[in-house]
């Protein structure tokens, strides 16, 4: 039987406001526990919430970027449940009239195909604090610094059909929120968190299967692996005649498996009702239109522009525009060196690998845009070969200075002087009588391959600094003369 996986995502994005959604406490990450939890965040008796204007601005910007309806009148509800990281005993959130209504966005898949994913809605809500389980015998410690940080919860329709599509959607959301500058999108710090609703059904049928909710799968890689392994689990159960229990499951990355979260099993009744401490928020058309005018160029538009302005391939353009920072980096490098294709290759290749290795973002790149442009310029004017360039790049990354300094200091300048090249070629022919003899006797069609030996010898003796193009030309000429 052929199975189809159906996936919907719920993505929580922390908004990068200065202060919290309902209080004037700082949202800075990494402070000492409970030093950024004010009376309102701690739900001290008698305290009241006052909503943050910037959080609304950010949410509307997101809605506009998703081509979504904007809730001109939105209201906050209370979602009631007891948990120690939730000081008020209810979360202030939106249910009936969220700030962002239905919308849609395109995801890009390998091979250049595109697919539309629908947004169900997105709403503003407050984040909870954190429970820390280490260091206290049979106790948990509660840090409420994060309590009250503004979030938008983005709820997709169940439109994704594979783990790959789910990751592409998550990446798209990441890309949009970072382009808009409304979140730092840092998944390692929990700025962007993802839950996935996963079900399977026999391909060709319409009815949705029973779904499970995978909680807190907080990296692109885990999202992909968790969905895959959960779908396999469900298919396995169904193929053995079993049935799926609707439940919340936790992904265990170490074991690469999902397991039931028993604590969430107790049937909950959240008793939502409109928060009486907050009034309806009303937004005017003028306000919304004015915000639309301030939206930055978004990834899809930018990718199209890069294709036409820089003649990048669809793939290169998509890659380089996925993150605003890398697109900005690309444009800075390109402006300085005038080599779009090479620039894209270097950013998507060596630089991406380097950042990945060091686990850092392009903001923290040890090679600046100016340095990369300098390096590419030296490739372009034949001062160094592409191969040497990789060596120079590593040196720049290690803090050895810019390309020119490294080339100069280490004597990596490519030899492009005709008489020097000629001497190298003569030397290798003189030193390799056997190989020359074999070359002469060989069939015409096999000769180009055999030339590799001579090139290799020259590169070895010149420490890679000989201009490979010139070597090739000179060798072909000299060996030809011996035939």
């Amino acid at each position, binding site marked *: 039987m052929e199975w189809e996986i159906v996936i919907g995502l719920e993505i929580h994005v922390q908004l990068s406001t200065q202060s919290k959604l309902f209080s*004037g406490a700082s949202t800075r990450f990494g402070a000492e526990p409970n030093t950024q939890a004010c009376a309102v965040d701690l739900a001290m008796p008698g305290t009241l919430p006052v909503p943050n204007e910037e959080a609304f601005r950010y949410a509307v910007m997101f809605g506009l970027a998703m081509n979504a309806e904007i809730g001109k009148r939105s209201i906050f509800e209370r979602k009631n449940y007891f948990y120690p990281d939730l000081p008020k005993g209810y979360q202030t959130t939106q249910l009936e009239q969220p700030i962002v209504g239905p919308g849609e966005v395109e995801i890009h898949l390998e091979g250049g195909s595109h697919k539309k994913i629908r947004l169900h809605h997105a709403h503003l809500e407050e984040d909870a604090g954190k429970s820390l389980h280490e260091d*206290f015998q049979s106790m948990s410690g509660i840090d409420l610094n994060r309590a009250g940080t503004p979030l938008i919860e983005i709820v997709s329709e169940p439109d994704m059909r594979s783990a790959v599509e789910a990751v592409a959607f998550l990446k798209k959301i990441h890309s949009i929120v970072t382009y808009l500058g409304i979140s730092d999108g840092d998944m390692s710090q929990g700025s962007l968190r993802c839950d996935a609703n996963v079900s399977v059904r026999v391909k060709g049928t319409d009815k949705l299967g029973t779904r499970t909710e995978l909680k807190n799968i907080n990296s692109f890689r885990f999202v992909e692996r968790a969905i895959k392994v959960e779908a396999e689990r469900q298919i396995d159960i169904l193929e053995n005649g079993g049935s799926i229990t609707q439940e919340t499951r936790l992904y265990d990355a170490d074991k690469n498996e999902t397991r039931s979260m028993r604590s969430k099993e107790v049937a909950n009744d959240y008793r939502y009702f409109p928060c009486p401490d907050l009034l309806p928020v009303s937004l005017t058309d003028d306000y919304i239109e004015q915000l639309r005018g301030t939206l930055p160029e978004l990834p899809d538009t930018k990718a199209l522009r890069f294709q036409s302005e820089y003649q990048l391939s669809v793939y290169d353009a998509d890659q380089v525009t996925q993150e605003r920072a890398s697109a900005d980096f690309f444009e800075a490098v390109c402006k300085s060196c005038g080599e779009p294709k090479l620039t894209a290759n270097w950013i998507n290749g060596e630089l991406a690998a380097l950042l990945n290795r060091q686990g850092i973002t392009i903001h923290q790149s040890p090679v600046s845009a100016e340095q990369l442009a300098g390096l590419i310029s030296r490739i372009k004017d034949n001062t160094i070969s592409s191969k040497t360039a990789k060596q120079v790049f590593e040196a720049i990354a290690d803090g050895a200075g810019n390309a020119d300094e490294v080339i100069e200091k280490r004597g990596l300048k490519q030899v492009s002087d005709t008489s020097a090249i000629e001497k190298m070629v003569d030397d290798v022919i003189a030193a390799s009588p056997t190989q020359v003899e074999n070359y002469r006797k060989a069939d015409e069609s096999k000769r180009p391959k055999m030339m590799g030996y001579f090139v290799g010898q020259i590169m070895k003796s010149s420490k890679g600094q000989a201009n490979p193009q010139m070597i090739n030309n000179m060798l072909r000429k000299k060996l030809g003369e011996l035939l």
Partner: protein
Amino acid sequence: MAVDTQTVEKLAELARIAISKQTIEEVSNRLGDVLQLVDQLQAVNTDGIAPMAHPLDEIQVLRADKITESNNRKDFLELAPQTEDGLYLVPKVID
């Protein structure tokens, strides 16, 4: 309208209030009295009447995004029954 003790137990669980076995009967009866009182509402026709969550038709005023609060952890932690290393302590939270 009577409320059975099972319902009361469910409500007490949702509201996280321990009710002793001895008093649950009485609580059920009292709750039933109150619900009988509020059930008078069922008699009135409210078709087409918008629910009213606030007495006045005011619109929310939003606050500028400024940090106005400073660290008062010491004052607040002093109010707590059990703390350690700047954290509030509770019996172990199990996920």
